[in-house]
């Protein structure tokens, strides 16, 4: 599904990713862990195509096509979803308006018809319910005044609405209380545990992995994958810290 090869990237002229290689086969969930500043969010942004994140070497193939040939919105339409570590606030634009516009943009680019207002409301209510979120919240401006946990839940509601092929979830678990963590874990499983889909889960903690069992766990340090293993690697990291595990 996602094949990252020898990826080098700079931010503001500073090299952050230094030859990162990683393959996520279709149907698998992979976790990336690693110390602060290792380049985890940078990887997510590079995959999403954020302006200012410059790829200097290497390649990424997404579902057989060259990812870097696609604009950010085209990547989304092609089935990539980026869950933000820090979801962005948009005053004056309601979540319903935002998501309907986004989903319909995706549909139009695939030659599909727009969802009607009614169809869209039904879909968003369903997904909000799945994540244990009050659908009324979607009438509010995007993320404005949302608590940290509510923002992360809202990211997962969006994941459900967009129903992507691959989800790159950047610290979706940070800032969540225990119930929200459970709800988010359940949401990821029910939306993304599918033989046709893949997930790249960026996290600092084992806790989320108690709910979403990864097929593989990787350690990202100084812009490279320095170790890979099965789910037990996450436990080892939690016990011993990155310094030991990456040594």
């Amino acid at each position, binding site marked *: 599904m996602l094949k990252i090869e020898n990826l080098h990237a700079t931010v503001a002229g500073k090299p952050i990713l230094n030859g990162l290689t990683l393959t996520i086969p279709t149907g698998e969930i992979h976790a990336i862990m690693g110390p602060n500043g290792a380049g985890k969010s940078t990887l997510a942004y590079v995959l*999403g195509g954020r302006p200012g994140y410059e790829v200097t070497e290497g390649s990424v193939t997404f579902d057989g096509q060259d990812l870097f040939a696609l*604009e950010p919105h085209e990547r989304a339409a092609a089935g990539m979803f980026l869950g933000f570590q820090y979801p962005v606030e*948009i005053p*004056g*634009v309601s979540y319903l308006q935002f*998501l309907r516009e986004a989903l319909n943009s995706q549909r139009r680019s695939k030659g599909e018809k727009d969802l009607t207002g009614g169809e869209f409301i039904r879909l968003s209510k369903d997904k909000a319910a799945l994540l244990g979120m009050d659908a009324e919240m979607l009438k509010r401006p995007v993320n404005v005044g949302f608590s940290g946990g509510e923002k992360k839940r809202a990211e997962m509601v969006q994941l459900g609405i967009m129903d992507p092929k691959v989800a790159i979830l950047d610290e979706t678990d940070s800032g969540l209380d225990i119930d929200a963590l459970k709800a988010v874990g359940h949401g990821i499983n029910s939306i993304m545990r599918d033989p046709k889909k893949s997930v790249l889960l960026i996290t600092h903690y084992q806790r989320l992995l108690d709910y979403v069992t990864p097929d593989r766990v990787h350690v990202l340090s100084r812009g490279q994958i320095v170790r890979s293993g099965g789910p037990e690697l996450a436990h080892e990291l939690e016990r011993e810290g990155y310094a030991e595990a990456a040594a």
Partner: protein
Amino acid sequence: MTALPTRKLEAYRYADIDALASVWTSLDSPARVEIAAQQKLQQIWLPSGEEVDVRRVEMVLEAGAVARIFALNNAARYGRFELDVTMHEGADFAFYGANIGGGDSTLEIVTTLRHVAPGATSHQMIRSVLGDKATGSFLGRIEVAREGQQTDAEQSVKAMLLDRGATANAKPELEIFADDVKCAHGATVGELDKNQLFYAAARGMDPATARALLLEGFVGGLWDEIEGNDQGIAEVARQALRKVAA
């Protein structure tokens, strides 16, 4: 007939005088609107569709009168909405105006609010969205006479520039002779937020759609107070935003 103004006049400093000349004969005396005591008026000013769209209105609010004006200034070449308002005791005036333009259009909203008696309130909210080489201005003069105690006058002025060649001007001007007065004004000029644009792109919105949506969010609050089910202006504004965002 009154002579054509020049840019030496404060209220015309940003005006497109050539464009103004083409319509001046029909405009040299402003339209007059009087709102009787305790009466209420709501007006919605849609663009005329002409490439030069100039309005001059003098409004008098008698004691306790209420006026709500919603205005969309979107002329292709020159749009000028000029409003002179005199408020008597306890009158309540609000103006919600947008300058939306691209090309090399010149758009301006010029208001003079006269608080001549105690306890009147005025509220002005102006949003400008300017692309290409457009210029959008707001000149807002507030005069509070000695008798205008307990005046509450507020201006919120924000502009969004979409291109390097676009210009926004905001000039609040206060002349206050009463001592018990609340006057608040704030003016900002900004650009579309890159983080918001990327967030929208990451959810699949093409750049033009994303810009239009963010601009709608920026301007949209102007129409919230419209009474009755008259959201036509919101739709016309949306079309205008789509056009400058494209």
